[in-house]
């Protein structure tokens, strides 16, 4: 598989505003993401995870180092639109990224900007709406929709550009459990069926646990980078960073600490049930 995102030695500081020193938010990040991967970037507020996300489609440019997305250097201004088509971005607040008062026109927004001809645009808009299961709502006003539905519209608006990769910056932070489930299911489906690379920024460990790989950010660096199972097995380190591990992982860790024979890489309920039964059978 080829690399879709290559980040090397990325440093970023917000410029000083006169009386304060520049703050270094990213301190030398090296990260490569392969085409079709579903990666969660986990970290607490201020860990630099959102800043990292904003580098992938050139909302921010590196102070030092390089970000290459599908062969395009994000610093190359002449290819900005090409880059943004290939790497779309979904933001946290569902209300503040919907431009139009009609759902289907919002989904078409990027295509209108790119000058896609009508027939092609119509087809792509309908396809995208169907993909996120919102086709029946195409004539609705966004204000009639729930948070989860609005986020799915935002995702459809990105998918219509036929991107290779989507960066989702805490897309579920403002949603209720129902909305979170809808959005996660949509993202997973797009990843599986269309092979779109997903970079999910989140602080919910249960969402991260559904991904292929977790990158844990802490204080502007990559603290852990592995499969969910491996990452969560470092219970103490994860909790020290200020993040949660799944409850079952925490319980297994507690039991191990008390001296019981429980595997240290439990992340699902089934595994936990099995391990406890095993203890009582012994």
């Amino acid at each position, binding site marked *: 598989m080829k690399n879709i995102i290559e980040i090397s030695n990325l440093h970023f500081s917000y410029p000083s505003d006169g009386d304060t020193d520049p703050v270094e938010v990213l301190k030398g990040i090296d990260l490569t993401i392969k085409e079709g991967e579903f990666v969660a970037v986990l970290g607490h507020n201020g860990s630099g995870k959102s800043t990292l996300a904003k580098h992938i489609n050139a909302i921010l440019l590196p102070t030092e180092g390089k970000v290459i997305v599908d062969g395009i250097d994000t610093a190359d201004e002449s290819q900005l639109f090409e880059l943004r088509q290939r790497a779309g971005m979904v933001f946290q607040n569902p209300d503040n990224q919907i*431009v139009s008062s009609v759902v289907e026109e919002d989904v*078409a*927004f990027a*295509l*209108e*900007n790119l000058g896609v001809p009508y027939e092609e645009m119509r087809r792509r808009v309908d396809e995208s709406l169907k993909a996120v299961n919102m086709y029946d709502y195409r004539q609705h006003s966004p204000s009639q929709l729930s948070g989860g539905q609005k986020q799915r519209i935002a995702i459809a608006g990105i998918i219509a550009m036929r991107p290779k990769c989507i960066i989702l910056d805490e897309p579920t932070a403002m949603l209720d459990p129902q909305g979170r489930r809808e959005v996660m299911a949509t993202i997973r489906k797009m990843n599986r069926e269309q092979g779109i690379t997903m970079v999910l920024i989140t602080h919910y460990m249960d969402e991260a646990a559904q991904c292929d790989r977790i990158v844990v950010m802490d204080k502007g660096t990559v603290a852990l980078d592995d499969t969910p199972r491996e990452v969560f097995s470092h219970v103490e380190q994860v909790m020290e960073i200020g993040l949660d591990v799944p409850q079952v992982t925490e319980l297994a860790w507690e039991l191990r600490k008390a001296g019981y024979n429980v595997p240290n890489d439990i992340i699902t309920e089934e595994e936990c049930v099995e391990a406890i039964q095993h203890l009582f059978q012994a």
Partner: protein
Amino acid sequence: MLRDVTIGQYFPGNSIIHRLDPRFKIVITLIYILMLFTGSNVVCLAVGAIYTLIAIFLSRIPLKMFWKSVKPLLPFLLITALLNILLVDSGDVFFKWKFLKITSGGINISVFMIIRIVLLIMGSSLLTYTTSPITLTDAIERLLSPLKLLKFPVHELAMMMSIALRFVPTLIEETDKIMSAQKARGAEIDTGSFLTRAKNMISILVPLFISSFRRADELATAMECRCYNGGEGRTRLRQLKTSTRDIVALIITIFFYAAAITVSIVFKHLMK
């Protein structure tokens, strides 16, 4: 309270009026307004009234809704009419007291003015009732597009207008929420003296401004991420199509205009 605003309200529907090309609807409304203001006598207005009633009937929007749009302006209308009655001095004098005179001319002018303005409001309400604000903006953009040659920022204005429309419900909801939150902290907003209420408005306006700026900022980033780059080379999902129906509607309107003028000329000659 904030949800009761009816000005510019759109009633979704599928009537023949709803389906007209919005560009034609705007042009037709302009001709209609011209008809009301060039017509110089009651007959001309009668033709206008017939035209309005037919159009309203075709739109299948209850007449009650049009009364709703006229009602807020009623006090203003009545005061103007009263001034006209008392101050205009022409024709037969019915009543006289000091410098005040009620004359047939005055009565004529005020009745005429009331009918004219009521028709004007009803006609333009019909436009906004049957055309969604976003379609309307779109049609205005396209009608004004020749002005682009003069470097007039037509697209930018239309984009601002449509974003404003998009955020009206969001901001109304937000205002409601902030009001409730401040009321929960004991702010007197709909009770208390004028001064306290005015002071407490600050506690609503400040958060509202701050959040609007934040929204604007985030929206701008989101738009850039979706390759927004001004009006140059944009295509549109919304297609405005002109059909025979629109041309027929335009011809009928022009016919009514011509009829109004003819009838009023004939009427004038008969009165002589």
